[in-house]
């Protein structure tokens, strides 16, 4: 299939094809991000994409921008350095669920708290894909993974709730089934000034699907479709077992963005210095 021109524009074609498995949802997730970047006419020269380690994080290499593929879980503090050194850069952070919620969980808490204008896309396949399907903090309770062959005793994070209590100012969730919604939310996240967090459920048929009786990508997409509940803050409802909200979950435009605050601090500090002289 021919690649559409707007997709081509944001891809480094010389490093394609991707390493991703057939049926993997990461291709869709990448297209969502590209569509959002293109719709917003984001200048590639001014765009920095930072990622950690994992199948999801490999996306940084495919996007034609300034890209930094860091260490496992450390994308956010590297992105923090980039953004504060050069606030005019548009900084997107891509991480997997293990990357962002396990090894990098502490960084996620503190980046949310600071409210730096970073755009996090946390791509959640419910397991560690790259290392072949081990349990992650996002694997549902009693489900299966290669390191919980008798069922997961732990409970999955409510990651969106966690970043909310930590202070993130834009929070949304979507899936690779909800393409149009995903693009809309990705654009909102990019446009939001402050720390934005978009969790994208995507299918990993190779491991998560196989271990949990979902034999292929379409079956997994059906699972997303069946359990996703559109969030309406006016009409909150009890979620049934296995269901999850999709849509914009939270936005707070009252909190100052960190780099703005820092710029003001510099001005104050200089004035105080001069006054002391």
């Amino acid at each position, binding site marked *: 299939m021919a690649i559409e021109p707007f997709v081509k524009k944001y891809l*480094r074609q*010389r*490093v394609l094809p991707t390493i991703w498995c057939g049926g993997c949802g990461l291709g869709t997730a990448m297209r969502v991000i590209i569509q959002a970047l293109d719709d917003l006419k984001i200048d*590639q*020269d*001014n765009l*920095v994409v*930072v990622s950690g380690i994992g199948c999801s994080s490999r996306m*940084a*290499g495919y996007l*034609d*921008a*300034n*890209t*930094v*593929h*860091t*260490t496992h879980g*450390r994308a*956010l*503090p*590297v*992105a*923090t*350095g*980039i*953004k*504060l*050194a*050069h606030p*005019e*850069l548009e900084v997107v952070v891509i991480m997997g669920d293990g990357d962002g919620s396990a090894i990098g969980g*502490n*960084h996620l*808490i*503190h980046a949310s708290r600071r409210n730096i204008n970073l755009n996090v896309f946390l791509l959640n396949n419910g397991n560690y894909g790259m290392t072949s399907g081990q349990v992650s903090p996002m694997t549902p309770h009693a489900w299966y993974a290669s390191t919980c062959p008798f069922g997961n005793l732990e409970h999955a994070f409510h990651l969106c709730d966690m970043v909310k209590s930590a202070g993130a100012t834009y929070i949304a969730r979507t899936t690779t089934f909800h393409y149009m919604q995903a693009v809309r939310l990705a654009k909102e996240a990019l446009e939001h000034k402050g720390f934005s967090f978009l969790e994208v459920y995507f299918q990993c048929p190779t491991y998560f699907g196989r271990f949990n009786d979902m034999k292929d990508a379409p079956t997994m997409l059906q699972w997303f479709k069946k359990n996703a509940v559109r969030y309406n803050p006016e009409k909150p409802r009890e979620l049934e077992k296995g269901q999850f909200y999709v849509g914009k979950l939270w936005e707070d435009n009252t909190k100052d963005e960190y780099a703005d605050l*820092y710029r003001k*601090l*510099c001005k104050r*500090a*200089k004035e105080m*210095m001069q006054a002391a002289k």
Partner: protein
Amino acid sequence: MSDAKGKTVLLQGNEACAMGAIFAGCRFFGGYPITPSTEIAEHLARKLPTVGGVFMQMEDEIASIASIIGASLTGIKSMTATSGPGFSLMQENLGLAAVLEAPVVIVNLMRSGASTGHPTGTGQGDLMQSRWGTHSDHPVVALAPATAQEMFDLTVKAFNIAEKLRVPVVLLPEAVVGHIREAVYIPAEGEMEVINRERPSSYDNLLFFKRDKSGVSHPPDLGTGFRPHFTGLTHDESGFFTAVADEVNAFTVGLNSKIDLHREFLTDYCEETVEDADILLVSFGITARACAYIVRALRKKGVKAGYFRPRIVWPFPEERLRQIAQHTHTFIVPELNLGQMRYAVQRIVGPEKRVVGINRVDGAMLTLDRLMEEIKEALA
């Protein structure tokens, strides 16, 4: 210095380090508090906002070094400061800085003991860690200041090396050197060389990581129109992952070659009365200061003693030590650990030479009396 344009002030070693960083052009600091490094952060928290720089207290040392790597990739000179427990946490991303060829300066004030150890004691136990702390073969340079003046001078030098070679550089003072108060000459602008990384205006075929003859690659800063890809994976000259055996080999050999190809630039030592020395005191940092006195005292007594102190400890000034070893038969290596530099010295001078360690690991310094006593015993 009659034509000196700078000024001499009484400074704590850590303050001198912070001022050296500003002088060198450091405009980003990311750190996490730990004794005995904290004064560096506190000084920069006040100073950086007034010179258009960024100060960040991060959530831990892993994030601290990650943040300075990010800032450095945008072209801003960046630094962190810590001590043993934090330096251990930084090892993961010290390797990342080496592989991304991100110039960064890491100040590691050496306290005493493994793990949490003796936080207010002084030590020299991180000598080997500064070289081999992160996994696999990687380039890194380490400098060992011995005075408050050198806390300034060698901080500037650390940035110069980091920028020129695009490597992580570790400044390795002992806690006492960080806290000592001495007169420090602060040069005026332009009085001391400040090196900035090379910034090519174009690249052939997008080969951002192609090495020049000196082994250094000069990838562009983020956001300058080139759109480079940085990865901690083994990569080819374009910057993208490779698993092709020859390319993986070329990457690791090439990355590490910058140290060897800059041996002269990276050789920095002080010596006294070595030409006819029968015995040589080899030491670094604060311990070496005591050794200089001892050598002069021994000479007065007619003992042919010499003094040798690397200011750049990694790479070790091997060639010079080997030259001296042609006529010197005994090497005495005093240090505040159980023999880390002695190990390096023995390897360099060969198994037939006598290498004696004088070691102290109780958090205090080696005193002149104790050094003299142990040296007498060793020579008896």
